[in-house]
């Protein structure tokens, strides 16, 4: 099949970018979207041109590396999939596609379709963890977890941190990503002790990194390749509000028994 691609080419963060048109004549419908770009890049390399830079790693839809806009939708037109798991059979012969990087101030462009998402790492460093030393696997039933909480925590933990939520959001908000981690850990007994502190620090960091705010449009939930729900965002708002209202200093003296 024939596919026409308009791809955003940008040398580096400081140089201006532009759309460049490419035509591919022999696209196999069984190729993944990234395999099609591999074919394009081989062709460009043969011609001595600079290949299109895009991020990828596992190509199984679980690592969160890949992702760019296809016709204005992160990860393309199919729901519940990353771009590496999107196959060309979902497109028509002769389709013209526009490929753009995720756009947000907090996601500066590295090159072409690649963006720097280390803002996510810094948000996780701020509070997306539990302070328990890992060791050998604990006895499975030593900490009981309510089934509903385990289910919701697992669904939130499915977030792969690809950044599509930020890209899709009309306000470039990172609320879905941040709330997924807050819900994932906050719903479990292991995460409960640091729940307030986590909400305070992660929301503060998210604001500092220059992400926008949530207007409850539901766009992120609709395009999330892992189906993370905006119910988590409500939990983040609740946790943050409660954490501020009930904030208490840690005792400087005492508390040692």
């Amino acid at each position: 099949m024939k596919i026409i691609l308009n791809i955003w080419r940008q040398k580096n963060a400081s140089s201006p970018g532009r759309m460049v048109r490419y035509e591919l004549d022999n696209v196999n419908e069984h190729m993944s979207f990234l395999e099609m770009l591999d074919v394009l890049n081989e062709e460009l390399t043969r011609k001595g041109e600079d290949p299109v830079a895009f991020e990828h790693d596992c190509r199984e839809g679980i690592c969160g590396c890949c992702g760019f806009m296809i016709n204005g939708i992160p990860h393309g037109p199919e729901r519940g999939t990353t771009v590496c798991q999107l196959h060309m059979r979902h497109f028509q012969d002769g389709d013209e596609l526009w490929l753009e990087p995720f756009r947000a101030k907090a996601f500066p462009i590295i090159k072409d379709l690649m963006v720097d998402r280390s803002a996510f790492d810094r948000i996780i460093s701020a509070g997306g963890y539990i302070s328990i030393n890992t060791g050998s696997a604990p006895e499975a039933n030593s900490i009981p977890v309510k089934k509903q909480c385990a289910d919701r925590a697992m669904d939130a933990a499915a977030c792969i941190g690809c950044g599509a939520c930020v890209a899709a959001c009309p306000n470039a908000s990172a609320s879905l990503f941040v709330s997924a981690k807050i819900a994932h850990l906050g719903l479990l007994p292991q995460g409960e002790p640091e729940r307030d502190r986590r909400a305070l620090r992660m929301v503060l960091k998210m604001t500092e990194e220059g992400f926008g705010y949530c207007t409850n449009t539901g766009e992120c939930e609709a395009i999330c390749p892992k189906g993370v729900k905006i119910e988590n965002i409500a939990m983040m708002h609740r946790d943050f509000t409660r954490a501020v209202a009930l904030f208490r200093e840690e005792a400087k003296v005492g508390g040692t028994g």
Partner: protein
Amino acid sequence: MGTIALNGGLEKTAFFYQSVVGKKVVMAVTGCVLCLFVLGHMLGNLQIYQGPEKLNRYAEFLQGLGAGLWAVRLVLLACVGLHILSAYQLWRLKLSARPTPYLKKSYVATSYAARTMIWSGPIVLAFIIYHLLHFTTGQAHPDFRRGDVYHNVIAGFSNPAASLFYIAANILLAIHLYHGAWSMFQSVGINHPRYTPWLKRLAKAYAWVIGIGNVSIPLAVLTGVVK
């Protein structure tokens, strides 16, 4: 990043408001108050269909509240102020959060109402100012008679331009509520798979009721149903 220290109520409030979450909570709470006001205001106004005496008596009753009326007005004014302030600051943040717009952007789930909150809001504000000058203080009214609300409404809406502006603004208000009346629950953290679908339906029904109720009055005057 060190530990967060929040001493005292003022520091807490500032910390809360500075965050993207805090501003949305302020937006939601003030929005909720305004939502309830809009309903009460509409129900009061619909008494126009019960004739001049009923409506004018209701206006007299409201005026008779004296200090109470002013207390309500001040609360509403504070809510409007905070709603606008947080909206303005969040809008500025939105502009800075995505400095380079997409060349092509498609929306999968975002409603028209949700995307146009920032436009429906200011237009409704302009309308409210006109509305106050028109029916409350009278400066923008051609034949204002203090205390005779029924006459003021009929005379005011006999001008098709004024009526059309009322109709357009109230459609925008309904669109604003179509998104806002559900969004406020989500912003304060109320979301449950069992209740959220109903809250969304309730918000849409609410927007329709407010829209139809408010638009019906200028329409009824223009078409001569109410004279």
